């Protein structure tokens, strides 16, 4: 009798452990590709305009920028850092990334 009861309890414990591991992987696994497919079954058109890489960035010869701060600003309220590096995009200043091709 006790043998069966222990068997049942052990099975439940193993199952519970397995569930914990499986759910964690689904939530936090970085290797998984959560590619949810689309709501539309329409075929994807071929990309016909394959622009050449490395377009020149606009050059701002007379850009006026404030002097770079000596120390990094505090990060409490998601400010735009004032260093204004690169091509003056928001994403070169700690802002959201734009849609350029990193060229």
């Amino acid at each position, binding site marked *: 009798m006790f043998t069966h009861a222990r068997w*049942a309890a052990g*099975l*439940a414990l193993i199952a*519970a452990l397995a569930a914990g591991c499986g759910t964690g992987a689904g939530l936090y696994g*970085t290797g998984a590709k959560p590619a949810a497919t689309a*709501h539309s079954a329409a075929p*994807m058109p071929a990309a016909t305009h394959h622009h050449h890489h490395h377009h020149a960035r606009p050059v701002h010869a007379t850009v006026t920028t404030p002097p770079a701060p000596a120390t990094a600003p505090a990060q409490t309220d998601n400010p735009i850092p004032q260093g204004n590096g690169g091509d003056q995009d928001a994403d*070169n200043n700690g802002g959201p990334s*734009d849609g350029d091709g990193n060229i």
Partner: protein
Amino acid sequence: MITHTARRGRLILAAMTATAAIVVTVTAVTVSGRSPGHAFPQLHPAAAPANWRHLTLPNGTAVLSYPPSLRPISGDKVAVSAARLTARGAFQLYLNVTPRQGSEQLAQWPAFRLRLLRSDTAASARQVAAAQGVKFRGGTGSCVIDRYVTRIGGHHFQEIACLVVGRISASVIVAAAPAAAWTQARPLLLRAVAAYLIR
């Protein structure tokens, strides 16, 4: 004896039921490859509300619509952007459209976008959801929702970024907000993406 036998039977039955339920749940999550709630949202392409404003790409191939609470901001000469900022200059909402410039392709877009973020402005980036064959006004796109942390400042953003291919052009639309405010920003950002017009 009968009582003991019945109790043992109930124990076994309960254990088997629990095991079956757990196995089904684990299998569903594993097979889908994502946790529940991370499905890509439905996008219904539609013109923007009448009071929204519009920015046309300098090359004339696409139109970004944005709500009146946002303002155009400067960026690349070939691109258009609009944003809502706090008084201190922090981004609350961000929209950007840029003509395709690199080797972006529809099928590889989510991976391309994450790779670009990691190699350019983000210290880390992870995909939340993605979709292919998304219908747009005038085209079809591939979209990814992701979260990233900027190298500068360590700011957490969440975005929906779509590569959209139209009849004569291709471009990228990005709609982003601080990750902490994503839930509130999401409906408006999705509305702006759904209103995107490409030629």
